[in-house]
C-alpha cells in the first residue's frame, strides 16, 4: 500500500506529501512522473515525482487542487493511503553538464522543475532559476530551489515579491545582463511554457518544456496523451513528457487539454454535492 507519511499545505490549494513507494523511490530519475488512482471509482492522473528518498523508500508529490481527483486527494491525511501508484514513468530529463542552465518555473510546475534543478546542479551546472506566480503565496518551493540554484529570481504578477511581471521578462533580463546560457527548461501552465518557448527562440536559446497532457495509462497504450512535436505524433507519457519547446504545436496542445471541460465540471460538482463545503473554497 502506498501510505502517506507526511502532508503539508504549502500554498492555497497546494499540498506537499511524501508517500511510501520503495521501488519507485529506488528507480526515479529527474523528469519522471507517476500515475495515481485514489480509489476504486477513481481516475488515473499523472503527477510529477518532485523528490525521492531511496533509503526511506519515499516519493514526494506536490499537487494543486484543480478538479475532482486532486480535491479528493487533498482530503487524505497522514496514515491514509493511495490505492494505486505506478511509475516512475516517462523519459528522464537529459542531465549532464551543459555549463549554465536557466530554469524557469511557474505555478505547480515548479514541483516538476525542482528535481531537474537539483540533478543539474549535482551534475556541475551553474543554475539560474526563475520562479513565477500571480502572487507571492503561490510561488512554491522557494527554499528547495534556492538550495540548488546559484541565483534565484522571483517574479509575481502583482509585484508582491521579487520582480513585478512575468517569467519571460526575467528570462530576457538574465540574458541582457550578459549571462551565457547553454540550455533552458521551462515548466508551468501551458500558456507560460508557450511564451517561454517563444522568448527562448527570440533569445536563441535551446529549451525543454514538460508537457502535461491528459493521460490514462502512462505506458504508451492508449494514445490519449499524443502531441505534435516537430510535425510528428508523439506520446507525452513515453516519448516525453519533456520535448524541445521550439518544436511543440502549442495551440493544438492547449486545445487538447480542454477536451473534457464539461465532464470535469460535472465530476467536481457531483463531488461537492456529496461532501459539502470544503477547504478549497
Amino acid at each position, binding site marked *: 500500500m502506498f501510505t502517506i507519511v507526511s502532508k503539508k499545505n504549502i500554498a492555497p490549494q497546494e499540498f506537499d506529501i511524501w508517500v511510501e513507494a520503495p*521501488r519507485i523511490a529506488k528507480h526515479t530519475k529527474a523528469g519522471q512522473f507517476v500515475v495515481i488512482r485514489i480509489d476504486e471509482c477513481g481516475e488515473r492522473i499523472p503527477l510529477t515525482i518532485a523528490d525521492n528518498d531511496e533509503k526511506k523508500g519515499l516519493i514526494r508529490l506536490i499537487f494543486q487542487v484543480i478538479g475532482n481527483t486532486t480535491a479528493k486527494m487533498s482530503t487524505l491525511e497522514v496514515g491514509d493511503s493511495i490505492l494505486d501508484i505506478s511509475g516512475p514513468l516517462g523519459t528522464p530529463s537529459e542531465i549532464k553538464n551543459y555549463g549554465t542552465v536557466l530554469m524557469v518555473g511557474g505555478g505547480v510546475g515548479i514541483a516538476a522543475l525542482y528535481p531537474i534543478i537539483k540533478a543539474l546542479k549535482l551534475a556541475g551546472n551553474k543554475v539560474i532559476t526563475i520562479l513565477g506566480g500571480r502572487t507571492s503565496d503561490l510561488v512554491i518551493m522557494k527554499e528547495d530551489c534556492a538550495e540548488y540554484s546559484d541565483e534565484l529570481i522571483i517574479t509575481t504578477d502583482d509585484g508582491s515579491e521579487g520582480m513585478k511581471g512575468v517569467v519571460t521578462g526575467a528570462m530576457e533580463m538574465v540574458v541582457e545582463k550578459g549571462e551565457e546560457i547553454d540550455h533552458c527548461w521551462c515548466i508551468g501552465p501551458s500558456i507560460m511554457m508557450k511564451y517561454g518557448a517563444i522568448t527562448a527562440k527570440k533569445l536563441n536559446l535551446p529549451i525543454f518544456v514538460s508537457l502535461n497532457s491528459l493521460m490514462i495509462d502512462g505506458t504508451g497504450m*492508449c494514445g490519449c496523451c499524443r502531441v*505534435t512535436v516537430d510535425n510528428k505524433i508523439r506520446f507525452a507519457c513515453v516519448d516525453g513528457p519533456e520535448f524541445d519547446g521550439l518544436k511543440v504545436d502549442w495551440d*493544438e496542445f492547449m486545445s487538447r487539454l480542454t477536451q473534457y471541460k464539461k465532464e470535469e465540471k460535472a465530476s467536481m460538482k457531483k463531488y461537492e454535492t456529496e461532501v459539502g463545503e470544503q477547504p478549497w473554497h
Partner: protein
Amino acid sequence: MALDFSKEKTPIKEQEPKVRSKNFEEVCLGYTVEEGILEAGRCIDCKTKPCVAGCPVAIDIPGFIKCIKNNDMPGAAAILDEYTNLPAVCGRVCPQETQCEELCTVGKIKGFEPVAIGKLERLVADWKYANTKKEVAKKSKKSDVKMGKVAVIGSGPAGLTVAGDLAKLGYEVKIYEALHAAGGVLTYGIPEFRLPMKIVEMEIGAMKDLGIDIECNVVVGKTITMQEIMQEFDACFIAVGAGTPLFQGITGTNLNGVYSASEYLTRINLMHGYKFPEYDTPVIKSKNVVVIGGGNVAMDAARCAKRLGAKNVTIVYRRTLKELPARIEEYHHAVEEDINFNWLTNPIEYVNDGKGQLCAVKCIKMELGEPDDSGRRRPVPIEGSEFTFDADCAIEAIGQASNKILLDTFPELKLNKWGNIEADPETGETSVPGIFAGGDIVTGAATVILAMGAGKGAAVAIDSYIKNRYKPK
C-alpha cells in the same frame, strides 16, 4: 446415414438488439444445461475428431461434450481444466468459426451447421463458477515446496496461461502487471457486453487460488528492471501484448474528438467511463461516430459508441465484407444494432470546425487491386471520389504495434523486423537464456487463444529449462 438431430445449432438466447444497444450487459445469454445437453447430442463423436486439431490448445472436445451429453457437468469441467485456464473467456471470444468449429465433421455434412463447441465450452465454464468454485479451489492448492521461481510480465491471456500451468506444476509464480487491474486486453479492451468483467475476474480468481501472486502497478523496465528480475527468478516469461495504437497520421489526427480505439475502449472498460460520473473517468458522448477499421476492435468501438447514445455509427473499411477480419458473429451483432458499414472507403482527413474539434471526416472510395504480401487484394483509392461524413467523433481501429516500454530498457533481447520479440513459436525461447516470450508481443496483434497456446508451450519449455539448469551434474 440417418441423422436424428437438428441441422442447425441449438438456438441460443440473446438480448434483443433494440434493448441491448442501450446497455452494456452481455449480449449472448448462454445455454441452459438442458439446451447444452441437446446441443451436445449433435456431436457424433466422430473417429477423426478434426475439431481438436482446429483448437490451438487441443482441448479434448469430444471428451467434454460427451460429459455434457451425460449430464456430467463436473466431468466436463475437469476435462476443460486440463487444457485451458480461461474456458469462460474462450467460449465467448474465440473465433470458433475459423478454428474448432470450422473443421467439425457435422458442419461438413451438406446443410448442417457444426456443433456449437464454443458455446458449450462457455456453458461448462459458467456452470463450474456457479456451482463448484470453492471445491475446485481447494483441490488445486499445492504444497509449499516450490520447484523454482518464475516471473511473468503482463497479465493478459498469454501471461495468465503460463502462470496457471507452471503453478499447477508446482512453481512459485509472480505476475507483474503495469495497469491497476489484471487481464490485459480482456480487462481493458474487450467490452462488457461481449465479455463481462465478472467473468474475467472469476477466471483470474481461480488462478489466484492456484497460488499465483499477481502484482499490479508494476511497469517492468521502470518500476523494476529486467536485471532485477533475472537475479530474483529462475526464468521469466514476457507477455506484454501489442499494446501501442497505430494512427494513420492523416491531417487532423490530433483534433478533439479523434481517438484511438485503445483510448476509447480503455476509458469505457478499464476505467468504467460508461458509468461516469459514478466513476470519475469521462468518455465523450457523441452524435455521429465514424469508426475506421474492420477488426474486432472496430466492431467493439462502434458498438460501444452506439451504447453511449450515438445516433449514427458508421464503420469505414477499405476492403469489403469478404475480407473483414472481425468475427462474423460480431459483424452480425453490429448490423443488428444498426451500425452502418461503408465498404471500400478510407478516411483522408479529419476536418476541424475551426475550434480544434472534429466536425467531419473526409473519405475516398477504394477499389481492390493486385494482391499484396498477405495475399489479400490491395485497396487503391479511386481518384475524384472524395466525400464527407458529418462526425463529432472518429475512432481509429487500424491496429496496434508492440509496446516499447519494456523492450527499450532491455536491448539484449533480439527483435524481428516488425519490432516484435523474436521467439521460438513452440517454446517461446528468446535470444536471452532463461527469458521466454509469447502472445501478441511475439506474433503481433492476434487472438486470445493463440496467446494462450503460446503460454502453454512456454510453460512446458520453462519447466524443462529450470529442471535442466538444476540437474545435478
